[in-house]
Structure formats: structure tokens, C-alpha cells
């Protein structure tokens, strides 16, 4: 059907349509308050001279870094600088890429990660991805899957209600899904799906939580909710987040590591990296000269 034709009548007084009232929801995402330096921060993982190459082409070169429990470490840098590859090394997900070769040493609680079974390591170093990726099962089963042993259906649903509820509460999702635990997880909104993925990762009982641009597919409201969640999770876990969004890193990170062309250029407290970077390349990047 063709669109209706409107004629402009010159003498008619035009009807002025008022814009929608500005609501607080339309305002930029509220910022989680940056916290005072946390107490009880301690080393959880240590990266020593880490290098990764895909098919002989280096993606990460000689990176040494510390991941500490009780703080959020943000990895920033332009696209292709190796920050996601670095993150994926921490739970040995790079091993799923046949062409990837890793060198250097990764230590979790004073033990080399290569001495762990990969499955055992990944329960301790859990990960949330860029795209929300709930499994095609109910909200409850998504979280329960992380708790259960491999493909087992045990423990039974009734016995898992406690841990599932706890994980969903920690991810700030419980109140929204309490009545719909049996609904398919793929019917949740994008933001809810991502919090479900965080709940799932938490249910495995990790010590380190890796987040690969967890908000890039989300709207500002959901982003704000997840940022608050990340800040609160860092009280009990070591959190490493890869982000493209410098404002996000500024809002939530305690420490920031800037990577460029596979190298770690600078790592330090967030305030220092953003306000008084030691390297010229960091200064150019955080001031938007390139990106």
C-alpha cells in the first residue's frame, strides 16, 4: 500500500508536537561510584613473559602482569592489540584454536596453569563473552549446568535450588526471573541474558572472572546494571575485563593495562593511567589521538 499523501496547507496553523518529556532513564547511564582502594587485595594470577602467536604471527608479545583478587583489572587498547587473546590465555581457551601457540608462564595461586586439567582450570577461571550466550535451556538449567558435573543431570533440580538462587542473586537477576525459572533463557532481554551468563559463570565457583567486552552488545541501562555488578563482584573475586570503552574502564577499573600491537605498554592504577600516563602512546590513546 502506498504511503498516505499529506498536503501542506499554507494557511493552517501548524500543530506543534511536543517532544517526549526528558526522563531520568534517558539520561546517560548512571556511573557506579569509584570506590576507595580496597582492603585485602592480593595476587591471584601471575602472567610471566606471555606470548601468543596464531600460525606463526605474534598476537601477544612478552606480557607480564598480575591479576589480583579484590580489584577490577581492565585491559584496554585499540582493536587487534591482543587484549582478548591475553584474556583467553588466562583460562587456556586459546587452546581451542589449533593455530595458536602460547609461550611464557601463567600462574594461579602459585601453581602453573598448565599443570591443571583445562576443565578444572576453567571452573576456577570462568569467563563471560561479548555476546550474551545463554544455552538453549531454561533459566534454571543454564545456571544448574555450571554446577553439575559435566553432562550429568545430578544433583537433581530440587537440590540445586539453593546454589542457583545464590548465583542469580549475586548477578542481580533473581528478582526479575524468580517467577520464570522454567522459561527458556533465550527469551530474556539482552541485558538479562548477559547477567544470566554472569550468574552461570559465578555458579561454577570461580576465583577469577574474565569478561570480554560484556556490555558491547547492550543498551546503556543494562550496561549500567552490569557495571555496578562487576564493581560489587570484585569484592570477592579477581575480575579482568577487556573493554573498548575508555569511560567504562574509568568508571569501574581499579587498575588498567594498556596494550598496543600485542605489547603491554603500561599498567597501573586507573587514575594514574588516565590522568598521568607514563607512556606517550598511552597518553595519545586515552586522549583519543588514535583508537
Amino acid at each position, binding site marked *: *500500500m*502506498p*504511503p498516505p499523501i499529506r498536503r501542506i496547507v499554507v494557511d493552517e496553523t501548524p500543530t506543534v508536537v511536543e517532544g517526549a518529556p526528558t526522563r531520568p532513564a534517558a539520561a546517560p547511564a548512571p556511573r557506579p561510584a569509584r570506590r576507595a582502594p580496597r582492603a585485602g587485595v592480593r595476587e591471584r594470577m601471575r602472567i610471566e613473559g606471555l606470548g601468543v602467536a596464531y600460525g606463526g604471527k605474534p598476537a601477544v608479545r612478552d606480557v607480564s602482569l598480575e591479576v589480583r583478587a579484590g580489584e577490577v583489572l581492565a585491559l584496554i587498547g585499540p582493536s587487534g592489540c591482543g587484549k582478548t587473546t591475553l584474556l583467553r590465555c588466562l*583460562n587456556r*581457551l586459546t587452546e*581451542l584454536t589449533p593455530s595458536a601457540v602460547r609461550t611464557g608462564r601463567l600462574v594461579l595461586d602459585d601453581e602453573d596453569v598448565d599443570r591443571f586439567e583445562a*576443565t*578444572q*582450570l*576453567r*571452573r576456577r577461571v*570462568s*569467563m563471560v*563473552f*561479548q*555476546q*550474551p*550466550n545463554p*544455552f*538453549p*535451556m531454561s533459566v534454571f538449567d543454564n545456571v544448574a*549446568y*555450571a554446577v553439575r558435573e*559435566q*553432562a550429568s543431570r545430578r544433583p537433581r533440580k530440587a537440590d540445586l535450588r539453593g546454589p542457583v538462587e545464590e548465583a542469580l542473586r549475586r548477578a542481580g537477576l533473581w528478582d526479575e526471573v524468580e517467577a520464570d525459572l522454567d522459561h527458556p533463557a*533465550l527469551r530474556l532481554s*539482552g541485558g538479562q*541474558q548477559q547477567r544470566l*551468563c554472569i550468574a*552461570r*559463570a559465578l555458579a*561454577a565457583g570461580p576465583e577469577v572472572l*574474565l569478561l570480554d567486552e560484556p556490555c558491547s*552488545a547492550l543498551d546503556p541501562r543494562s550496561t549500567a546494571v552490569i557495571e555496578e555488578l562487576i564493581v560489587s563482584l570484585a569484592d570477592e573475586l579477581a575480575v579482568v575485563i577487556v573493554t573498548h570503552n575508555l569511560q567504562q574502564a574509568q568508571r569501574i577499573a581499579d587498575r588498567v593495562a594498556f596494550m598496543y600491537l600485542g605489547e603491554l605498554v603500561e599498567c597501573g592504577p586507573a587514575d594514574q593511567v588516565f590522568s598521568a600516563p607514563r607512556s606517550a602512546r598511552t597518553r595519545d590513546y586515552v586522549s583519543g589521538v588514535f583508537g
Partner: protein
Amino acid sequence: MAVAAAPRERAALAEPSPSWRRGDKIAVGLCWAAGLLLCALAAAIVLYMGYKGLSLLRPELLWQRPQASADQSKTGGFLDPLIGTVVLTALGTAIALPLGVATAIWLSEFARPSWLARAVESGVEVIAGTPDIVLAIFGLVLFQQSFFAFLSLTAQGNAVFGRSFLTAGAMMALVALPFVVGSTREALQAVPRHVREASYALGKTRAATIRRVLLPACRPGIATGTVLGMGRIVGDTAIVVILLGASLQFSRVDGPPVMGDLRGTGSTLTSYVYNNSPAGEGNAPEKAYAAAFVLLLVVIGLNLAAGRLGRGRAKWKS
């Protein structure tokens, strides 16, 4: 606004406008004609069979056993072929489903060494392209070997008959297999890589991921392929005529109750239609029409089911 206008824009783009070249206009016209011709053909088959079938189908045909007679009024119904169709379809599906899903999983998730994966892929394609009459003859040669004597009747002098529900079902599985493999693979490939990685990142093994994440995700795809394969089994004639013996009634072989029946011969709706139509012995053409109508209903029903099942696919936000 832009979203609402999109379908209209698309419709406008599809309409040949004066600026189109004449060759393009003719090509578009041919595309339209091809689509309409197919619709007309399908409608003609369904309407003709519907008209004939409804006028000749009587309920008692569905529960009377067929009888051999030169007089059409004494030839009974087609209960045995109807049950035969169900049994053969169930047997073929029971073999094709696990085999097809396993093949698709291997091809999609493992596929190493790559030369073997290529060989398996070609194998499935060859099976899909093999005429069913060739499969039937091959099956007969294969199942007449003494090694497979347990699947069918062994005549005096230890000659293996090679024709039975079991042997026909095994070959029917090959007819359905490419459909199951194809749509399961397609469904597996539609699962984004990060969904698999999300499962590995929870400390799950590849086996657990396949079992609990990938198989549930491609259940609608598996169901679609299976139902399409069932449709092909229901409609197949050559394998029934050659490997099932196409005896009018069930002809069981000595043995335990179910096994004895499955080792025996029988018929299906397709062989019943063939044998009773003027193309075959032609002694009960009216019943052939009625049976063909029932057969068409079953196949259309299965295709509708395949379409519905395919709609339930898991969709991740992109």
C-alpha cells in the same frame, strides 16, 4: 520509520520498472512462471488425488486385510500395507536417526583427519544421489549373503532370501540418512562458536557440550531432517518391491513374535498402489487410488510437520 518502509522499498525494487533491460524483464517473468507452474502442478496432483481418493476411499478399506482376487469387490482393504508402511518407516528412521546425528556431529565438531571428513562428506552425497533402485539391488545382493541370514528367510538348501522388513528397513535408512545428516549439520553450524566456548569456559568437556548444549540447540533441525527422511521412506517404491518382497499380506517367518514378523515379507502403500494400478497387475485400480490418496495425505502431513518443527530453532541475539 525506516524499518516500516523497508518492505515497501523491497517490493518496489522487485517490480520491473521501465528502466529495466528487456532481458531482465523476461528473466523475472520466467521466474514468476516457474513458481506458478510448480504451484499449479502441486495443486493439480493434490486436487486430482483428492477428488479420486475421496470418492473411492471407504473407511473399511483401512481395517480390512487385502485379499488376492480377480474381482475387485473381493480384494479387501489395505490394512497390511498401511501397517507395513508404518513398520518400515519406523525401522528406517530408527537406524537413520542415530547414524545420521552421529555422522553430523563428527563432521561438524571433529572432522579430523580432514581427508576422512572429506571422504565421509562425499559418501553422504553419493548415498543421497544414488537412485533407490540401485540401493535396492545392492541391498538384495548384500543381504543374500549367508552372514545376514538372521535378517530374512532361509530357504531349503541354505539359500538366503534377503527380503524382509529388516533388510528393506536397513536400506530405507540410507534413503533418509542424507536428510538427517544435512539438517543436523546445518543446525550445528548455526550455533555460534562463542556458545560452544561458553560451555568450555565453564569447565565442560567437548562431550558434555555436545550432549547438553549442542544437541538441545539443534533438536528442531534433527526433527526436521528426520521427518523429511520419513517422508522419503513412506514414498519409496523400488526398495519395497525388491527388498520387502511386496507380498500382499504379511508373511511371517518362524521365530519369536516380533522378530518373526520383521524377518518376513509384506507390503507398503506404495507397493500396494503399484501392484493394483494399471501399471502393475491392475486388478483393483479404485483401491489403488484410495491408497494413493492416503499415502499423499501421510506425506503432506509429514512435510507440514517438518515445516513446523523447523520453526523452533534457538536464536541468539547478535
